[in-house]
């Protein structure tokens, strides 16, 4: 059972999502919030698995609330929701630690699939556009000593991660078992102090592991 927290300042949006998500057998909405402050408080209180966070809320906005929640509960996955997918907000959301970014008008089946994707974190949500956005908004690459900690194989896995491949795809590319890939990925994230694949993409571009256009 995946526990969900819904944060959105419009009651009818919360209500709509609640209906959609509760009809899915393995999803359960355990709390709701109508502003950023309440979102942080409710997250700490109910410790959900996934948070659906409206980017635009009164008092505390969604991006700041995401940062606060992830500091308190690093294992939570945050799925950012928005009316307009304006690029600069997407980037800020990822840098704040969001695992995915969605339009509120997304059809219900895709919403449910997205929740599963970020929870299982086997793959990036909307890999092509996520990658493109991060690539477009990367600053000039900076050295990272942590990269030396990685083995050659782990660096390879990181490169493929940064290209947006799923675990299955990485396994096929490297001709190894998916379970092997899974442990490689876990080790890479742990060694680099990254919370999930999206952060791996951001890291890779920030530190020149992947160059734009590759």
């Amino acid at each position, binding site marked *: 059972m995946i526990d969900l927290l819904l944060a959105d300042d419009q009651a009818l949006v919360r209500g*709509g999502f609640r209906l959609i998500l509760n009809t899915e057998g393995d999803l359960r909405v355990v709390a709701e919030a109508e502003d950023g402050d309440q979102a942080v408080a409710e997250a700490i209180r109910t410790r959900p698995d996934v948070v659906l966070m409206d980017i635009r809320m009164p008092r505390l906005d969604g991006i700041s609330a995401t940062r606060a929640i992830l500091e308190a509960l690093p294992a939570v996955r945050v799925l950012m929701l928005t009316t307009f997918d304006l690029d600069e907000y997407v980037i800020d959301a990822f840098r704040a630690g969001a695992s995915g970014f969605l*339009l509120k*008008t997304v059809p219900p089946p895709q919403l449910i699939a997205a929740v599963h994707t970020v929870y299982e974190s086997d793959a990036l949500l909307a890999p092509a556009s996520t990658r493109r956005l991060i690539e477009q908004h990367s600053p000039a690459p900076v050295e990272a000593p942590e990269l030396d900690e990685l083995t050659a194989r782990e660096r390879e896995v990181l490169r493929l991660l940064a290209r947006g491949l799923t675990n299955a795809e990485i396994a096929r590319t490297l001709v190894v078992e998916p379970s092997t890939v899974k442990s490689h990925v876990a080790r890479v994230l742990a060694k680099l102090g990254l919370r999930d694949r999206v952060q791996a993409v951001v890291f890779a571009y920030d530190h020149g592991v992947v160059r734009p256009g590759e």
Partner: protein
Amino acid sequence: MEQSIRDTLGSARVRRGADTGLAIGLALLALVDLALSSDAASWGGRGPLQVCLALGCTLPLAWRVRYPIATVVAITAAGGLLVAVAAPHQAPFEVFIGSVLASYSIGAHTSGRRRWLGVGLMFGVGLPFMVAAAGNGMATGNALAPIAWLTGAWAVGAIIRGRRLRTAELEQLTAELAQQRDLQAQAAVAVERGRIARELHDVVAHNVSMMVVQAGAADRVLEGDQPDVRRALAAIAGTGRETVDEMRLLLGVVRSDAGEGLSPQPGLGDLDQLVSNVRSAGLHVDLRVEGERSPLSPGVDLSAYRIVQEALTNVLKHAESATVEVTVRYANDAVQVEVCDDGRPREPTAGGGNGLIGMRERVAMLGGEFRAGARRDGGFAVFARLPIAGPAA
């Protein structure tokens, strides 16, 4: 009024009419003088020559503006001949008037090389007659005296011409400045409208998104096939998505660079926060809410908030330590906001500028009333009345 009189007097036709009248009047005067004067000596006789010369040094004045050089040549010739014929007596005073006016016209109605041509011809034609007059017995000083007054008349004409030209230049500059000011005002209005449009698009897009979510939820919760219902819900969701996509494009067009976007568009419910911010800036604010608080459409809510916000900003900027009263009145069919301060008295345009334009535009868009102006006992008041739709079903 002054302008139209000037226009009338200045119009070419009137001027020509006046000149014609002047010429004819002067000519008649000369003829009468010639006919009735007891002493024909100043005319040098009373014959057909004198009649011609009398007409010759007055009638050409009718053309003094259009053909100043021809006029001055004709009058100088006729007048000069009269002077020579009348010598040693003084010539009749009509010669004096005619030649002075003709010389003045050279100064006032010619310029550049033509002017020197006119002056040259005038003296070139007149001098021989003056010399002849001296030869006929007139004192040399008297014979040459015309040089002085002709030069003077010409100089006066030139000065007046210069003044006329400068005035015309100034008038044109003034007109251009006024036009520029109008254009700037129009631009300011356009900017305000863009801002207002952006905010409203934002509000609408958020509401339409919410509709799409609800339609999606209804479809999921609906039991059974129900193809008609599902089709309707899909239509709502689909159209809603397209709408939001288009609004996103529009938002790009009317986007401003002001930092915004991470907090929702405000409404009258956020007045407490606004007032408390203003208070911490040092202003004394009284907030009063009257009537039963009813839910407002986002457009009205937002506009009402913005009006209060803008009015308070103006007080902070211009009123100098005042007390402000903010009143919000809910009625059945409208919501009224009023912001009155008792600070430094000021005019609506002084610094109000863009703020007032924005308020006016918002109110006009919603079909409401707006008034802003200085209060009788000092200070400033802003009043807006925004109609709200009837109670929702």
